[in-house]
């Protein structure tokens, strides 16, 4: 198993960012992590990139090729990043160095020769790669910058490529181009890809498996096609119903999820989604939901066990 996550939690003081997440990522997986704001998806992404800040307190296990990341010192984590683990962030303008030419930073990132960088720019569909190598990030459009960021990540020949909201800052047409580029990139990553997004359609287009996070807890994991066709957890079902791209137009009200996220600093009791759940049962308020696993993946819900 490439990545093993077991009962993994991340707290910032009293704030529970990620709670009790268990998940395995195998070679060849393209895993989508789906969550809304406050779901802990970005914290989990940072953990996967070995980039959690110092003040985060971590418990449980997150192992990369059987090595627990928590057992590594700063140098050990640095050795992973940019070699085994590569990242693509939401805002490529922030992740590229503004005062370095594209070519200079591609060579510096991956320690790769000029020819390899040039070739990679060509492979990610950048026209006139010679000229782009001499340009600065501000001279490129958002879509081009994201292509450069993906090229930089691929140049590392990573075992795991983590992309955190890779298309959120782009317009619809560019978004589709970057999605198809990421889809082609799957063949270039000899390992796994993890795509973190709030956008169902992005994950639907890219992923083999999807994990759904709510308030820091993983409520459902399943094969992408199954999960999108027949979601099991009430939260996943409600979220799918809210997606404007999927719901038919009607004169009736737009579906929403009533209520609010629990306060991230509050003590937890019972199911974290229970206060907003329409399928709530008697035990939901007091007892943590059971993990119901099957060939499909798993779901944490009292209503599924009944």
């Amino acid at each position, binding site marked *: 198993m490439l990545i093993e996550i077991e009962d993994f939690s991340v707290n910032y003081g009293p704030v529970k960012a990620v709670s009790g997440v268990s998940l395995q990522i195998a070679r060849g997986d393209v895993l989508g992590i789906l969550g*809304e*704001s406050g779901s802990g998806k970005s914290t989990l992404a940072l953990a996967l990139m070995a980039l959690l800040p110092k003040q985060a307190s971590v418990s449980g296990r997150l192992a990369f090729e059987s090595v627990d990341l928590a057992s590594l010192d700063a140098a050990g984590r640095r050795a992973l990043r940019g070699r085994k683990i590569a990242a693509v962030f939401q805002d490529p303008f922030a992740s590229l160095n503004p005062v370095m030419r594209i070519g200079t930073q591609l060579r510096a990132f991956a320690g790769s020769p000029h020819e390899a960088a040039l070739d990679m720019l060509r492979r990610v569909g950048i026209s006139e790669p010679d000229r782009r190598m001499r340009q600065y990030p501000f001279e490129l459009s*958002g879509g081009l910058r994201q292509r450069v960021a993906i090229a930089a990540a691929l140049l590392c020949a990573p075992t795991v490529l983590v992309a955190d909201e890779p298309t959120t800052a782009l*317009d*619809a*047409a*560019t978004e589709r181009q970057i999605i198809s580029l990421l889809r082609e990139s799957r063949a270039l990553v000899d390992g796994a890809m993890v795509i973190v997004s*709030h956008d*169902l359609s992005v994950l639907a287009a890219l992923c083999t498996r999807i994990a759904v996070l709510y308030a820091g807890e993983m409520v459902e994991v399943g094969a992408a096609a199954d999960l999108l066709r027949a979601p099991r957890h009430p939260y996943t079902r*409600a*979220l799918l119903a*809210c*997606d*404007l*791209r999927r719901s038919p*137009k009607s004169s009736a*009200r*737009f*579906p*929403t*999820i009533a209520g609010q996220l629990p306060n991230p600093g509050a003590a937890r009791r019972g199911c974290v989604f229970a206060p907003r759940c329409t399928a709530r049962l008697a035990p939901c308020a007091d007892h943590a939901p059971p993990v119901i696993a099957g060939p499909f993946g798993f779901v944490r819900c009292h209503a599924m066990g009944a």
Partner: protein
Amino acid sequence: MSPVLEIEGLNISYPGGFMRPPRLAVCGAGFSIARGQTLALVGGSGSGKTTLARALLGLVPVQSGILRINGRQPTSPRDRQWNVIRRETGMMFQDPVASLDPRMSVWASVAEPLAIHGGPGALFGRARWAKAASMLDMVGLPRAILARRPAEISGGQARRVAIARALVLRPKLVIADEPTAGLDVSVQGDVLNLLADLQAELGLAYLVITHDLSVARHMADRIAVMQEGRIVEQGAADDILGAPAHAYTRALIA
């Protein structure tokens, strides 16, 4: 009844500079919106849709063409009629958190248009406070957040504050730039329901600017598709989405 907003053959260009020719951002745009109707202006980034919206408030000078809002037709960027147009037009900017002044409380942000556009119906002191509080009721926000600053409220709440601010002067036309951008999927419906309720209640005309066709499909009566400054196709929403005539529209839908 004459439309709330009417434009015809509108040209907007950005001035050039040394060795740089002026750039035509909007070229020959024309459409109209009637009371209680919603028109969605759809296009990719750089298509000129936001520039066009800004021109409707006189924030960007118009080069040529006809622009009529509530029967007023300002002729120059300094025309006094702009003051009336701005009073009668609510604007919701793309990023509500960035468009609110970070140092101003929610109450001050919502009440500010009342201070700026005073006029004959001006409200002062306690009455202005009461008006701001009633606007929060209208958009479904608790009055408890009146004293908070934009950094202390959620994205969905900031969106509602922006709606309250846009509506405080009882406009006839509301321009909404990407009304659901950056919102969680589960909150988008709340905002769209609210906008639909307010439209039905107040008879507002909406100009919705979006790159998201699903938003256009759910909100709009009519859709105008913009590409590189030109409106390449417009018509009833169902017609455009059901049978797009222009290649660019088909590419957007695909």
